[in-house]
């Protein structure tokens, strides 16, 4: 839990170009406050409607062929974020 006296840490989310191409004017890097990966994706969705839906499904979970790394370590929605963490969103191997 975070509150007014204990703001969520500031983190940097880095998005793949193939994802930002789906949204006009979506930057590749977005700084936001989030205590977990789930909060970070919710903050992305609030800032750019529809963006969170491309990363997470309704389970809710990170989509099967998406990957999120927090500080270089593979993360899930519950992964906690420390101040300054780089949250890297990537596309996994897929297609045919």
């Amino acid at each position: 839990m975070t509150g007014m006296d204990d703001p969520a840490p500031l983190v940097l989310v880095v998005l793949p170009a193939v994802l930002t191409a789906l949204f006009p004017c979506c930057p590749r890097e977005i700084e936001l406050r989030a205590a977990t990966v789930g909060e970070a994706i919710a903050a992305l969705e609030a800032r750019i409607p529809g963006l969170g839906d491309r990363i997470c499904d309704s389970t809710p979970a990170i989509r099967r062929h998406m990957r999120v790394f927090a500080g270089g370590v593979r993360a899930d929605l519950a992964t906690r974020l420390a101040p300054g963490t780089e949250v890297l969103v990537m596309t996994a191997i897929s297609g045919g």
Partner: protein
Amino acid sequence: MGTRVLVLLGTKKGAFILEAGPERRGWELRGPFCETWPMNHVIGDPATGTIFAGGGSAWFGPAVWRSGDLGVTWTHSSAGLAYAEGAEPVKAVWSLAPGHGALYAGVEPAGLFRSGDGGQGWEHLAGMQAHPTRPHWQPGGAGLILHSLVPHPEDSQRIWVGISAAGVFHTADGGRTWEPRNQGTRSDFMPEGQRYPAFGQCVHCLVMAPGMPERLYQQNHCGMYRSDDGGVHWDSIEAGLPSSFGFPAAVHPRDPATLYLLPLNGDTAGRYVPGARAAVWRTRDAGATWQACRAGLPQQNAFFGVLRQAMATDRLDPAGVYFGTSSGSLYASADEGETWHCAAQHLPAILSVETLVVGG
């Protein structure tokens, strides 16, 4: 502005648009659109000229794409296109249909959504997933998909859907409740004595005859059928066809007795055109007799198939007929199937074909 005929293609790698004048020759190709996402169904709404494309990306999930300028620019949305938390998520959109000012979307795993704002926001019509037979539905080869979506042209409360492999269902209350409508259709993949169940049939494609809303045709995994009572009873019309197996069916724009099929050689024989010779099979008498339409189609070494949504007609007179192959070719006829030409080739596998005629 002159008449423009657009053939809308959903492919494994994006949407494409073929365009020609009313002579329907000299096709020009545009695409791929939709960032090369697999697009299961691309349709044009004749009331507005808007093009919608439904599909799903293995990375980014399901969405419906929309173009209000005949494919020049596109946006996408999946807002509300989701089941409840904890349920198996929507994987892809499989079918789209406009009706009574709304847009409907059938999805995998099988369910139905409705948009009242042109595909920007979606609501789940939960009655389909809540059907008491739902726990017993089995997926077909393409998954548990709601692939055929047939709104009644006058009654906004009535919709028919086809689900592989749950069968045909009908609602008379806008999607709150549904009843299976499969009486008379076979399930050859069931043990003897259980081949005419109430549900569980592998319907491949369901279409409605023009001007006769109670006349439905379906190409099934196990036979070809016609119903003249809204799907309550089905009669086999496969006598005279080279095979009981195929995927697509397309109705004529004005004649309820004319139907086009593209039978394949069988579900265990490779699923390509019989004898490796391509033919569209046409009936002019609601399935009593069939004619093979071959002129201009490859008559040797044709080992392609045609998928369930990959055949369509246009509304011109004489009607155009089109089909797209699993090997990425689009064949067109401007004379109701009498003669054919290849309008495009070397495309990705074609998943759907629809038409939109504008201007003129």
